[in-house]
């Protein structure tokens, strides 16, 4: 019995782009957090009871705070309620949860750090903590409503793609790689499933070690309810079937161990 749901204190809240918000919270979860892990955030509204799993964008161990950058998914949603909260408000959280990116494996490697849409934020802390030979950050957005790109600039070479071509390469992160003639021998990625599917295929074709962070609707967030599973290539040791729990065994997986 070492963990609990905790009332974190909101330190700041800022809108970064259309529907994208950044929140710093004071939380015990900061002390053990790693890039690629997530926290469960709860509303204070009795009609919206399930936790919202939100990836960790930045970790400040010195002052015990975490940054989350999240998307408001619609009107009257839990994330909309989060966006209306102010500095000083309390927000119930549990974390850190999940496994995180194995960033130490990047030592001496030429790396792609790839994020798409609301999969961009967890790549920031990863970029900050990673020591590697060459750090190429490729981030994709829908349109000119981009976010966090200035902070990425301080942590590596940044390439941007937008679906409508308003900033950087027109298309997706794979198009940005091709257009800029980039190569790597290690990949870390987070984003929508079609993007991860393309990256997984690219990594496989080129024999590149690749770690992807998956997303699925969750209930408990701690590995008990078996809601957020993904298909695994081999029989999983815990579930004894070809399913892995994204919240507990992931959200980060070696691309070859899961099927998308």
């Amino acid at each position, binding site marked *: *019995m*070492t*963990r*609990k*749901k905790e009332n974190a204190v909101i330190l700041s809240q800022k809108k970064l782009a259309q529907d994208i918000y950044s929140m710093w919270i004071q939380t015990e979860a900061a002390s053990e957090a790693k890039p690629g892990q997530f926290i469960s955030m*709860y509303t204070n509204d*009795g*009609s*919206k*009871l*399930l*936790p919202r799993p939100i990836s960790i964008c930045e970790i400040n161990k010195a002052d015990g705070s975490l940054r989350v950058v999240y998307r408001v998914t619609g009107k009257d949603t839990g994330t909309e309620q989060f966006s209306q909260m102010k500095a000083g408000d309390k927000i119930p959280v*549990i974390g850190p949860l999940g496994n995180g990116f194995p960033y130490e494996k990047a030592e001496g490697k030429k790396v792609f750090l790839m994020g798409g849409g609301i999969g961009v934020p967890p790549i920031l802390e990863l970029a900050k903590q990673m020591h590697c030979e060459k750090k190429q950050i490729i981030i994709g957005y829908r349109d000119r409503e981009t976010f966090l790109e200035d902070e990425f600039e301080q942590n590596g070479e940044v390439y941007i793609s937008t679906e409508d071509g308003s900033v950087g390469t027109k298309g997706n992160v794979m198009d940005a790689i091709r257009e800029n003639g980039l190569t790597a021998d290690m990949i870390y990625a987070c984003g929508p499933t079609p993007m991860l599917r393309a990256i997984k295929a690219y990594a496989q074709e080129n024999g590149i070690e690749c770690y992807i962070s998956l997303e*699925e*609707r*969750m*209930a*408990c*967030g*701690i*590995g*008990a*309810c*078996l*809601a*957020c*599973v*993904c298909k695994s290539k081999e029989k999983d040791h*815990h*579930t*004894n*079937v*070809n*399913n892995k729990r994204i919240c*507990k065994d992931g959200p980060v997986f070696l691309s070859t161990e899961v099927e998308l």
Partner: protein
Amino acid sequence: MNMKVNIAGVEWNNPVTVASGTFGSGAEFAEFVDLNRLGAVTTKGVANIPWEGNPTPRVAETYGGMMNAVGLQNPGIDVFCERDIPFLRQYDTKIIVNVCGKSTEDYCEVVERLADEDVDMLEINISCPNVKAGGIAFGQNPKAAEEITRAVKKYAKQPVIMKLSPNVTSIAEMARAVEAGGADAVSLINTITGMKIDIRRKTFLLANRTGGVSGPAIHPIAVRMVYEAANAVKVPVIGMGGIASAEDAVEMILAGASAVSVGTANFFDPAVTMEIVDGIECYMKEQGFEMISDMVGIVK
């Protein structure tokens, strides 16, 4: 004052257990909860062989609750016996194994396999709305429910709890049917079948199309059904359905439940069961109850 309860000859330290499927086999929750302080741990349903469960999405939030169609994914009875029973036995709590199956033979195979295992009670799930065969097929027809109860009782060495579905016309009739089949206790309610549609994508939110609705939103329905079942049978009733606080648990006990299961609320706060155990104790002190049994079904 005494929190102990006796359910079909098994003495629990207190009347609080967890609803099957919301707590795994306890290992994930052990970081948040002192398992010694639960009257019993009810495990996630286990079948004779491993089940992969349904496609995702398997869950959706609903107003004041949620909906699931996990589809009874489980590692099968062999892994369960090797791994989960020894884990739970480390704690001073009773072990209730929830059993699922697709046919009478499946259920009986698991029950027979458990006969010589160190577990305290069996809960037979004849009420899961999310699997195509078995499950609820046995739980919506009184005759089928009575027959499967009689069948598993032949193999069972532990007391048998039959878990009932709310998706029936008369819960009293179903409770009487399983009692006639030899059930040592009944538990209710399982989830209520529901559906949620994503109006933007114009499709079902769950891959399974339908799912079981649970959580605080269904609590009054559960209280009513526990009341009706408790007044229909002599065997003890384990009440569940939307319990999220000690007050909810007490309400269920006053309606006729001899013990209570906390389900969906474990997802909102993994430590909620501890608050509920403490809260029931406070209520008893405040109201001058000496024993849980003094409270059971006193609202007539």
